[in-house]
């Protein structure tokens, strides 16, 4: 039960696309790959779970760490495209207060675009500049 992790950057958000199983064996690798992002100045982090078929409390703990780190700097963590069995785990445990949950990527993009328009100050992130690196 492997886990595949892909990162995608848009001007507004870093998105981690997860495929497979986020469990006691694979959660440490996700934590390792998230660390440079959590240590950076990224304020919008999204998890695209369309291809995630299994999650246990080990995975929820990684998400919880991400949520808290982003919250410390006024950032936001979002989850999108959850399969029903994944959504059920989130609902049973209620482990992640304050996160946004979107039914589709389109819904999330529209929300984030509206949030961006609200900000009147600050420099938008350079879409061509790396703000974190991940060791292979």
């Amino acid at each position: 039960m492997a886990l595949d992790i892909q990162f995608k950057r848009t001007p507004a958000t870093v998105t981690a696309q997860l495929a497979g199983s986020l469990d006691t064996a694979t959660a440490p690798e996700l934590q390792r790959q998230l660390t440079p992002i959590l240590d950076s100045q990224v304020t919008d982090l999204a998890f695209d779970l369309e291809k995630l078929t299994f999650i246990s409390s080990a995975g929820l703990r990684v998400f919880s760490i991400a949520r808290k780190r982003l919250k410390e700097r006024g950032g936001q963590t979002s989850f999108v495209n959850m399969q029903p069995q994944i959504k059920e785990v989130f609902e049973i445990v209620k482990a992640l207060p304050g996160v946004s949950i979107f039914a589709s990527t389109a819904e999330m993009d529209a929300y984030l675009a509206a949030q961006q328009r609200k900000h009147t100050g600050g420099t938008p992130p350079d879409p061509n500049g790396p703000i974190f690196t991940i060791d292979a």
Partner: protein
Amino acid sequence: MDNACFILELQSTPEEVMRAVERLQQFCREQGVAEKAIHALMLSLEEMASNVVNHAYQRDPSQCFRVSVQNRGDRIVVELRDRGPAFDPLQVPDPALEEEDEDRAEGGWGIQLVRHSMDDLHYVREDGENVLRMSKHSKPQTPSPGL
């Protein structure tokens, strides 16, 4: 087939936990168990076996634990045995909704998921072993052909 079963002796590592979870999935599919029940069983085994690895054995890979799974016709029974210090995981309370100590709340997520997913849970300390039995009702279905 009534009373089909398998037993695994596992080393105390996260990878071995997932080996047991995958074997459970395969067994349940062969027995014709519904996918929703299979997922509930897989999640519960992952949570409780992880507890054995992380807490009972402090991630010592030289330690072993046993997973036994049986189809009793109307339910699947999963038994977990370890020789760690006496510990009843069913005594861990579900995290309170407004738990202020977040670390303590996180510690209860696993058992909360298991309580929600399983129909019966039973713990006993027996011959120096922690024995946890979990069962999930499953309607008898025609088993699918083996892969």
